[in-house]
């Protein structure tokens, strides 16, 4: 991203879980590649595997994601170390959104509802690609929108 504040503007990082921002970016590229293969081949077990990867990142913690492990083992040693940190909470939330789409897509393909499989996978691909190429976190941005749309449901007492 080109619009990061300059280092002298950075405040001391609070003691919250944080990640090297290049890790999630690398993971987003891998996810993009995996989802492209899924769409081209329609091979749903790969999508189910991606769902497991999403679930590990979202529910267990980012460092348990296999892509994070790959980043640490293969990519990070070749990069210059950085002090730049990113809050882990938004990234985990986005992984959770990805998990939802991946599960939906896997079910669609597996149960023969190919249209559902394709559309759900395409949504996940869109989110992953926007994140990889532009550093734009669709899951994080959509949070506000989803919340706004849920106002109506809340009024009739539906828990969300």
């Amino acid at each position, binding site marked *: 991203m080109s619009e*990061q504040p300059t280092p002298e503007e*950075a405040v001391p990082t609070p003691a919250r879980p944080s990640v090297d921002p290049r890790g999630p970016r690398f993971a987003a590229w891998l996810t993009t590649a995996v989802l492209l293969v899924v769409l*081209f081949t329609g091979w749903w077990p790969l999508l189910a595997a991606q769902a497991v990867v999403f679930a590990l990142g979202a529910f267990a913690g980012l460092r348990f994601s296999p892509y994070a492990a790959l980043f640490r083992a293969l990519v990070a040693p070749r990069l210059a170390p950085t002090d730049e940190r990113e809050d882990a909470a938004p*990234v985990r939330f986005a992984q959770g959104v990805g998990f939802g789409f991946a599960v939906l897509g896997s079910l669609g393909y597996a149960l023969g509802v190919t249209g559902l499989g394709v559309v759900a996978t*395409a949504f996940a691909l869109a989110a992953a690609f926007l994140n990889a190429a532009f550093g734009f*976190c669709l899951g*994080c941005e959509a949070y*506000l929108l989803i*919340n706004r749309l*849920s106002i109506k449901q809340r009024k009739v007492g539906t828990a969300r």
Partner: protein
Amino acid sequence: MTGALVAVGTLLLCAVVGLVLRARNGRVREGRGSRGTTVELVPEDVRAVLDPAAAVTLVQLSTTFCTPCRHTRVLLSDLAGRTAGLAHTDIDLTDRPELAKALSVLRTPTTLAVDAHGVELLRVGGVPKREDLLTALRPHLPG
């Protein structure tokens, strides 16, 4: 075959969306305070957090799941600290979708520049560009 077409279409669409978003990011837009001759004040919840001593308060709207919000917070609090008559405050919209709706905010961070009367002068979506924001604020600041 359909899957392949959808894949290519998705990538193309996202490339366009990404470029548009990148171009719009941090741009200073006109506020929603004055439309024609009628002057509209921001909602009471926002007026309550304005700094009465400041000519302009930068009201940053954030959510928990928002990395650029953190960058914006650092930038704006620094800017407010160095600029006379400028204050900075942060409202967490995570559990307040009603307020997001009342303010017509779709994404975070969005920053509103609100004057002491509660009129929204400017708004910025995304991480503001420091110099652009300062230039746009200049006419509303003392001295």
